[in-house]
């Protein structure tokens, strides 16, 4: 490798970047827009689910039950209606996601020491909201039940039973942003990194200037390193921007060391580099490369456990997730941001990313050399 030749191509590439102000602006502004949009949508907490209460009992006991729904911030009582038909109508219109119907004999039945049935009508169209509403409603009903049992048996037995005291670690308020923002950082980094590298290499080929470069005394390796380095720098800057903007804008606390966080990000970028070069070696046009990038991005997003838990996936998809670099990065970044644990906890992930990086780099180098000669 000759440093002078390498420097020449480096300079050429920097000039390209500076001249192409539009791409540079896009690179710096797009991730921000993406982060902020996602911040308010993907990351929005499932809270204040609009519900309607139809209390046919209108008793002290039933009002006590309703109060439990008022005190939790999972639900937001938007409507208080007087018959079941209105609940149905509100659900059809999409005004509420759940309706609670307390039967007329609610208080009497409980007073008699019998079981009473409270009906919950749940809008299942959005399963994510549905799941949360369902488990929260069930928990409220059960807690009230236990209270009732305790009260009625109180004289016979003071206390007794089992009390579970849950404590939530890492994200005690169960804030959605704390979960999704670190994930987004990984996703946006991967997608922009690939786009940039692909743009640099494929565009040259598309414009037909690749042949000219090959005709110069430049070696293949010099060409590759020279062309890619400036974009790694750019991608690194973008990554830092995403990281800082995302974490600060949405107020995600970083429990672990910031240095370690940066280190993980750079490591991830390095591991993804081979992948980006591989795509640009295979794709013939920029459009095609972008399509391929998208084609890879989508499965990685879903398989990596970015939004949805991997434990609920069928086993073969769990296995497929192991191959996706984003899966490992996700665990690493969450370990440092949310859990604040050290590097010793993510050794398997680091090994996985290294293997991926080395293998894809080797493949990329092979197909790139093949293309050049």
């Amino acid at each position: 490798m000759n440093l002078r030749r390498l420097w020449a191509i480096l300079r050429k590439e920097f000039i390209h970047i500076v001249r192409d102000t539009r791409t540079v602006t896009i690179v710096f502004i797009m991730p921000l827009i993406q982060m902020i949009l996602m911040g308010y949508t993907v990351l929005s907490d499932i809270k204040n689910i609009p519900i309607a209460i139809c209390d046919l009992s209108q008793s002290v006991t039933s009002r006590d039950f309703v109060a439990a729904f008022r005190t939790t911030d999972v639900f937001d009582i938007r409507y208080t209606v007087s018959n079941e038909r209105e609940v149905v109508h509100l659900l059809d219109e999409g005004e509420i996601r759940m309706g609670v119907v307390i039967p007329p004999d609610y208080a009497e039945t409980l007073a008699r020491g019998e079981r009473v049935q409270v009906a919950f009508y749940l809008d299942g169209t959005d399963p994510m909201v549905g799941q949360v509403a369902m488990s929260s409603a069930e928990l409220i009903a059960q807690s009230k039940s236990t209270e009732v049992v305790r009260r009625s048996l109180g004289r016979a037995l003071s206390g007794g039973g089992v009390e579970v005291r849950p404590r939530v670690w890492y994200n005690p308020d169960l804030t959605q942003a704390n979960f999704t923002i670190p994930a987004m950082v990984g996703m946006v980094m991967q997608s922009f990194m690939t786009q940039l590298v692909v743009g640099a290499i494929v565009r040259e080929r598309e414009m037909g200037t690749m042949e000219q470069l090959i005709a110069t005394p430049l070696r293949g390796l010099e060409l590759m390193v020279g062309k890619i380095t400036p974009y790694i720098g750019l991608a690194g800057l973008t990554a830092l921007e995403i990281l800082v903007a995302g974490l600060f804008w949405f107020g995600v606390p970083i429990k672990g060391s910031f240095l370690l966080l940066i280190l993980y990000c750079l490591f991830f970028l390095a591991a993804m580099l081979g992948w980006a070069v591989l795509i640009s070696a295979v794709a013939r046009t920029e459009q095609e490369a972008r399509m391929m990038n998208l084609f890879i991005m989508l499965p990685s997003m879903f398989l990596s456990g970015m939004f949805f838990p991997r434990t609920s996936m069928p086993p073969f998809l769990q296995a497929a997730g192991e191959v996706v670099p984003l899966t490992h990065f996700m665990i690493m970044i969450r370990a440092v941001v949310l859990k604040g644990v050290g590097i010793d906890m993510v050794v398997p992930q680091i090994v996985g990313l290294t293997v991926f990086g080395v293998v894809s780099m080797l493949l990329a180098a092979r197909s790139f050399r093949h293309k050049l000669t």
Partner: protein
Amino acid sequence: MELMTSLERTWAIIRKEFIHAGRDPRTLVITIVMPILLLMLLGYTTSLDIEGVPMAIYDQSKSAESRRLIEAYQVTDSFTLNYSPQSYSDLRRLMDSGQIQVGLIIPPEYASELAAGRTARVSCVIDGSNPTIGSQVLAIVTMVGQSHGIQIIQEKLGVSVAQLPGIDARMRVWYNPKLDNINFMVPAIIGMILQMTCSALTAGAIVGERERGTMEQLNVTPIRSLELIVGKAVPYLVIATLIGAEILIIGVFWFGMEIHGSMALLIGFCILFMLTSLAWGLFVSVIAKTRQQAQMLNMLIMLPSQMLSGMMFPILSLPVVLQYLAALMPLTYFTRMIRGVILKGVGLEILWSDIGVLAVICIVLMVVAGARFKKTLE
């Protein structure tokens, strides 16, 4: 006669456009395969069911009573009991490395407390990194403990569950009784794909013509601008329709989704939405000079509409500014319409306002784009 020649000219453009599309088989394959891939991924990876969440129990009591409690957790499908750590720091380590997501700590005095008729306190730690999972795990863990407690009380008093007072939550899930995510996703993918195909491909086709300089050649032919627009749009409308049908068929026959409302209404909604997306595509093609610009402009509406419309992500509350933005997006109205007709089975009596707004957006875009389009041609 006049009409016949006009139709002939339009047909010529349509054929030309189909040939163009056919020459680029890679893009065509991707447009057709992409929806299948999306459906399969979303269908199998987006489950939020709490199943087999890895759990550890640190049993300090080691008594018959504590083993019964452990059993109560084992019989639920929600957790898989993988580890029995022997110290608190072991448990912490398992959580920190992500090997478990729930840890139960049974105190040494568990059995003696129960024997004394007091409430035995069990502590439990939950990994809250994923709030959706965390909140559900929290509910399940608490409920299992509570019902076990009630069972202990019952045994002591010699009564059965039915004799005890209490509240039964009778859950009736409507529209999507099994909370199947695929039923949520199929309409979403249809909306996304229709929008993408209709606006992006149409804009690309028209702007590409201008970029290559062949627009002038078309201008010197006897083709009128309306014929050109129709001719350019029809092939992509056909492709979009086919893909939409493909998604719907996979959804219904592979994933067993049910369509509750009227099929005619569904098709009508899709046509209205496709026309609106098409109008946006035309609008873009009037403004953009290069295909890259057209792509950027399309992304400008595609990304926010996918995020804000409630199509992919549950949106319970948005900041006011974003609410206005969402109100401008055609996808917002289409989302309500298609979910309404497919999942809820409701009809015009509820959806009329959404249809009205979408129609207005469609007409405005058409008129604006149409007027400007003529000018750019001349």
